[in-house]
């Protein structure tokens, strides 16, 4: 196959973006047809390339190591395929959901531009084009959030600053790597993360994991959930950014840096992963808005991926990567179902919903499957990948990380029980908007159902993606001799690890049931603390009461922790991003402005001073 084909994967969406930006807003049908056709074309292209497996295109470019090198290999082919798939689903979905959005023209253009940039980033085998595409994504991210609504400009700026900081770290890491190795071609670099290389790895990890939305670089995601179009949430934070961030992280820790099991970098990654899992899921648990809840989960699940890749163990890495694709599927599905609900109800506040399953059975079914998948219920895909991460974590010998992962699993399930219960099942809320509810249009439902079906397929026939997609990625990259055989890990119900996981699910169910009852059978209160704790009734209730106390303490503690997290970590991080940087810049600027008083003598004095300093410096140096 002609290596120029690789360029087409970038050019096709880019050309589509340009066309979509030019088509006048009034011609809706043409635009929608073009969007779907262009994304279908990219998918066809991606499938063809996937069959190709390896392809390299290294045209002469600037020279001096700065080259436009594109490289297709099993991993990038896999990501390319996934990106194209999600693009098509979102394009179809947007034809219905974004139809009346005021900035629909810019929206489509930016979505396809993002796709072009993402394809470019995945294929780049040189850090310079990689940075180019990576930065391009930053711009489209800003644009896509900014077209949301009134407050979205602030959120867009916040996302821009946070992501920009991560990219900046990555560039510094690349700088160190380049200065030390002398090459910018990614596939030529292979170093051990010690000394300066360790710093380079940490910096680049911030860049990659920050793109994926790991703590503490996540705070814009929940805000964007409210401000930005929901299709954007399904596309970028749920799918594209996870795929790209984790793809880069996996390449860094598999190819560029040799991350070893039990090494400092491995421990660092696992710690970051574990902290992200637990803290983010606790935040998710107490959310009252469906989209916000989902967005915190989008943060929390990244933890599993990083934890898995950080283990440095074959099973863990495979699990992390598998979790990446699984997460993209079910989180995309969940956001799309939230969008479907929003499409009909005009709100996603759980308090105002309830009992939608009857009116919107397809959306509800899709949501349920995806929610069970993210919670890791057997036999869905989330179960398989989480099991692999647990196994990997246990294999490193640091049981604590596995415990954190299980803890995350408990609260994940609990929060989705609450979400599903309060939106689709249970009784309709009294505050439910008085609209006639019916199922969303077909263009909205079909993508959700496809994603749900994929979740089931990847779970039940997990050998298929594991051997077809993941195994080629790991082939010969994990410690020598460790041949990957996914049948060796008993990924079924009958082993102790799975037992513990199922126990976690059970625990989550009990927690939910208890909270629901205490919350006056209002599911949206299920995770809420039970303030009006019933007093002592009988002396016989001692045992019960003690059980209850533990629960309440737990909930209060959780609430306290959530509060502390929010005000102690979430908000201060925000503060640093929003206030501290601004005011330091402002103060410096003010000081300098004072020196510019418009007086000629003053300006001349600087010139004389400058001359003296320059003369002194030059004389001293020669």
């Amino acid at each position: 196959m002609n290596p120029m084909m690789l360029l087409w994967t970038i050019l096709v969406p880019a050309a589509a973006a340009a066309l979509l930006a030019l088509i006048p807003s009034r011609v809706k049908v043409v635009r929608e047809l073009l969007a779907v056709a262009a994304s279908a074309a990219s998918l066809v292209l991606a499938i063809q390339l996937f069959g190709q497996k390896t392809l390299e295109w290294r045209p002469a470019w600037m020279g001096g190591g700065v080259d436009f090198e594109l490289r297709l290999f099993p991993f990038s082919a896999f990501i390319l395929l996934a990106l194209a798939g999600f693009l098509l689903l979102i394009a179809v979905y947007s034809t219905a959901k974004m139809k009346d959005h005021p900035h629909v023209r810019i929206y489509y253009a930016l979505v396809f531009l993002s796709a072009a940039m993402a394809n470019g980033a995945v294929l780049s085998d040189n850090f310079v084009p990689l940075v180019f595409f990576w930065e391009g994504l930053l711009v489209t991210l800003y644009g896509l959030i900014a077209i949301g609504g009134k407050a979205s400009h602030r959120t867009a700026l916040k996302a821009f600053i946070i992501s920009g900081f991560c990219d900046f770290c990555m560039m510094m890491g690349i700088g160190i790597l380049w200065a030390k190795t002398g090459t910018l071609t990614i596939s030529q670099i292979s170093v051990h993360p010690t000394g300066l290389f360790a710093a380079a790895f940490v910096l680049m990890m911030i860049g990659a994991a920050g793109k994926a939305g790991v703590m503490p670089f996540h705070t814009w995601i929940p805000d964007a959930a409210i401000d930005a179009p929901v299709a954007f949430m399904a596309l970028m934070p749920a799918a594209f950014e996870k795929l790209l961030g984790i793809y880069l992280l996996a390449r860094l820790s598999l190819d560029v840096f040799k991350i070893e099991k039990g090494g400092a970098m491995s421990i660092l990654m696992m710690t970051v992963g574990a902290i992200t899992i637990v803290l983010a899921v606790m935040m998710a648990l107490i959310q009252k808005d469906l989209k916000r809840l989902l967005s915190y989960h989008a943060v929390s699940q990244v933890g599993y991926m990083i934890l898995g890749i950080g283990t440095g163990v074959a099973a863990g890495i495979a699990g992390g990567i598998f979790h990446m694709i699984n997460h993209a599927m079910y989180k995309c599905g969940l956001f799309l179902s939230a969008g479907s609900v929003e499409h009909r109800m005009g709100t996603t506040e759980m308090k105002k919903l309830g009992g939608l399953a009857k009116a919107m059975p397809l959306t509800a079914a899709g949501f349920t499957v995806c929610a069970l998948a993210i919670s890791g219920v057997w036999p869905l895909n989330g179960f398989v990948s989480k099991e692999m991460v647990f196994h990997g974590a246990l294999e490193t010998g640091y049981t604590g990380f596995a415990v954190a992962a299980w803890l995350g699993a408990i609260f994940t399930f609990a929060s989705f029980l609450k979400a599903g219960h309060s939106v689709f099942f249970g009784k309709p809320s009294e505050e439910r908007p008085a609209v006639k509810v019916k199922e969303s249009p077909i263009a909205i439902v079909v993508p959700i159902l496809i994603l749900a079906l994929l979740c089931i397929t990847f779970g039940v026939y997990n050998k298929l993606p594991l051997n077809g997609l993941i195994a080629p990625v790991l082939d010969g990259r994990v410690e020598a001799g460790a041949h990957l055989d996914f049948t060796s890990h008993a990924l079924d119900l009958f082993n102790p690890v799975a037992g513990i996981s199922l126990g976690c699910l059970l625990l989550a169910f009990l927690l939910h049931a208890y909270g629901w009852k205490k919350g006056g059978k209002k599911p949206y209160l299920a995770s809420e603390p039970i303030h009006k704790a019933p007093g002592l009734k009988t002396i016989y209730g001692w045992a019960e009461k003690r059980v209850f106390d533990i629960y309440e303490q737990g909930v209060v503690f959780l609430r306290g922790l959530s509060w502390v997290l929010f005000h102690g970590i979430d908000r201060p991080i925000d503060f640093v991003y929003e206030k501290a940087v601004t005011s330091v810049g402002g103060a410096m600027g003010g000081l300098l402005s004072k020196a510019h008083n418009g007086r000629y003598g003053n300006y001349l004095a600087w010139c004389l001073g400058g001359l003296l300093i320059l003369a002194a410096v030059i004389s001293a140096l020669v």
Partner: protein
Amino acid sequence: MIFLYIGLPLIVAAVLPLVGKVSKKVLPDVLANGVFLFLFAYAVTGARGLLAGGALHQTFAWFGEPLGIQIAVDGFSLFMLTVVALVSACVGLYSISYMEHYGAKANYYALLLMMVAGMNGLLLVTDLFQIYIFLEVAAVASYALVAFGREQAELEAAFKYLMLSVVASAAVMIAIALLYGLTGSLSFTGVAEGLRQLDAKAAGAIASALFLMGFGLKAALVPFHAWLPDAHPSAPAPISAILSGLLIKVSGVYAMTRIFFHVFGLTPALSDVLMWTGTVSIVVAALLALKQRDMKRMLAYSSISQVGYVVLGIGIGTPLGIAGGLFHLLNHAVAKSLLFLTSGSVQQATGTRNLDEMGGLAKRMPVTSTTSLIGSLSIAGVPPLGGFWSKLLIIMALVQSHRPVLAVIAVLASVLTLWYYLIMQRQAFFGKLNERWAAVKEAPFWMAASTIVLAVLCLVLGLLFSSVVSTWIQPAADVLAQGMGM
């Protein structure tokens, strides 16, 4: 032929005031723009062939007797000639509509042509004293152009500009005199030869400090920058564009680079001084720009900051650094002229330059706002526009020459740049439409057309960056890199 770059604008400028008696507008428009377009077309098509056999030296004869006119073209000066021709052509087109209400169009074009002739002359000369003279030609014309509107603020700014510029000329003059006294020669090669024989370290250091101050003043490097934020915003928009886009680069950066690379030879000490001066300019001016509420003043501070990048890149002295610096020079010339032109369109439409009073203009002036956005993003270094690549090259060159501190500062300052440009864009063009501007109209044809040309160029420079670098920048950078080995 290459002498046309000086001769043609001079001659046309000389006859323009007379032509102005006959036709007040049409003929001056046609004549001046014809000259600009011709020079640009020639720079792009024909001139490259002249360099096929290396740098070109030309001497002229007067009835068989050799004259003392010597000009030289190499990759560096040809690149700069092209940039001058490009920006002046766009500015000329823009002036057709913009200068309507100022009156005295023939006079305006005459001054503009004089300034271009001065800059072109500066790019072609081979000796120090001629540098001084053409510096003055361009400068005298620019004083008058800054004050062209004859409002209170404009005259005051022009006066301040004149006063500090004279100091710059004086410093350059003293340095030239010093070198002449030392070596007894004025031509680049003669002085360079003499300096090598003499090994006059201290005197050379003082001369280079004086040059740095003189050209630093012209280029508005911190701490010699104070005149620019007054002078550039006060001038009519096309003049602001040409001052920020060209004059500070030609009479500051080009002259400084030419002398430091080809006369003194870039020593490590000079390289360090250039880089740090550049870095200080970048940071200080970026912080100052952040506080501005006046659109053109913000752009003026941004010019100081971006020239800092150019000097930083060239100061590194490695081929990659020089290429990055020169490419940034080109990108900044295009984007900053574009931004000043759009600010002129805004000012003409609304009558204000205060960002607080604007808002939502994108709805009323789509072309102006889109082109301005493209220019802002290019300067701020956002892909895929040209500014991204040039900044990337500079930062990579810094990393390559093991100057991580400067590299980090350069990256952080580009974040600052993006920040104030986002502020500007949001205040001026986005958000709610201020009711005062409900009746505002898009800029007239020639103004819109020339901004569109420049915006497309920003995009093209980014997308075709590798071929632009290899055909235009690399020959120029090679000349400089070779000069160091002298």
